[in-house]
């Protein structure tokens, strides 16, 4: 069994109504429930704030953004799966696509 990080990128527009937010969340909870029941979830992981700081350059300058609105990593989950193909197949059912986002599937080195 290998380990993978699912990086959720983009795809988080503001829901039109509480009911829509509810439906969206439900699809994520269902997806996680399914993967959990099948033993794939190592760690549900965590969501990330959009805002933060970047430290960069030889001067190690600290800046707060700007961040690319698209493709920003908004969360991480750790998944156990036999191989990359299998892990990618699991990611295909992720609800992030419904809102135009994507999942980056990255093998974790050991």
């Amino acid at each position: 069994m290998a380990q993978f990080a699912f990086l959720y990128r983009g795809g988080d527009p503001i829901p039109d109504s509480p009911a829509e937010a509810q439906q969206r969340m439900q699809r994520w909870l269902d997806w996680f429930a399914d993967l959990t029941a099948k033993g794939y979830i190592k760690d549900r992981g965590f969501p990330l704030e959009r805002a933060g700081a970047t430290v960069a350059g030889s001067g190690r300058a600290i800046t707060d953004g700007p961040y690319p609105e698209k493709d920003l990593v908004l969360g991480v989950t750790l998944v156990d799966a036999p191989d990359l193909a299998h892990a990618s197949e699991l990611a295909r059912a992720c609800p992030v696509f419904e809102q135009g986002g994507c999942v980056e599937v990255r093998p974790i080195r050991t």
Partner: protein
Amino acid sequence: MEPLEHLFRREAGRMVATLTRVFGVANLALVEDVVQDAVCRALETWKIRGVPDDPGAWLMRTAKNRALDRFRREQTARVYEAQVTRHVESEQALRAQVDEIDPAATIPDDQLRLMFSCCDPRLTEESQVALVLSILCGFSVAEIASAFLSRHEAVKKRITRAKAHLAGSKKLFELSDDDFAERLSSVQRALYLLFNEGFHGSSTDATVRAELCDEAMRLAALLAENPLTAKPATFALCSLMFLNAARLPARLEPSGDLTQLLDQDRSRWDQRLLCEGQRLLEASAMGKELTAYHLEAAIASLHMSTRDPQRTPWREIVALYDALMRVRPSPVVALSRALAIAQCEGAERGLLELHAIADRERLAAYPFYAAALGELELERGRRDVARAHYQTALTLARNPAERRFLERRIAACATDPDTPEK
């Protein structure tokens, strides 16, 4: 905990009610913004982490913090200060007030006061209902438009105007004001309309309609729980809702088709709601006032008093419809009365009553007037006339369930073996 499926909508309504009390109705827009922010944050966090043990408290805490942030920022901009200072003297006082928010203690009261504020008699009944759905129930414009088969733009305009009117009030409605009684009947009426839209309404989506009924019952229960609003008419209204809701599982077949009251599988009625409805009807029988809610609840109760539809006490039901026509006459009530008369005195007499309904042109677009004509014509054997009426009804049907129901009745005109051709 409440079922998760309504969590965001219900909590949004609660947060708006409580924060509106603290920040004042003048800041309704700010309050709605921070509540939406809180819901977004919850979605983004919980979708990965899962739902926390007390989601309501999480949301309220988040909304409170966002509200204070916004207030601090906008206070410097001096946009909200003028209005807010009427309610709170300084940010510190505001913070203290926000910190004191104790959901368990104040939310029912906050919701009640906001409900009374929404049901301002100067607004049309449609606007009051739309406002309640938008502010207290967390429905979007699209969802309200779909529930009422109205155009999106029209609903949006109606809600925007109604909110502007509401924000113009100095403060939330005081439950002990002089015009309280008038307001209470407006609130009852709005909840009655809300429930009816779910129960008889035109939306094609059965879940939407069940939600409208649920919301009406939830808000009506708030009225019944508060000593100020727990009046006989409130109990009668609640009774009416419970009794009708008890029939919902049997009213819509699994396929979403409407089932006529007399053909329903009565074992599928919800016994708990039925008992609660009967209890509330008894509780409503005090005081001097006999409202339309009392009469409608009594009619529903008689319909449900027997497992055998053949033993329905039609004469008593007709007498109640007679009374209802005196209290709140309408062509729809007259239609139901005519059908009850047909049960006692035969189809001929029922048809006479149907043709004699005053204002029956107001039923011209209502499929069940033509359907009632069809039903009684079929009963007295005039199949071709009956079929023509059902076909008229079919052209007026508002959703697939109504269409399927009417198609079945048209088929019955051709094949009903109990009805000899005359």
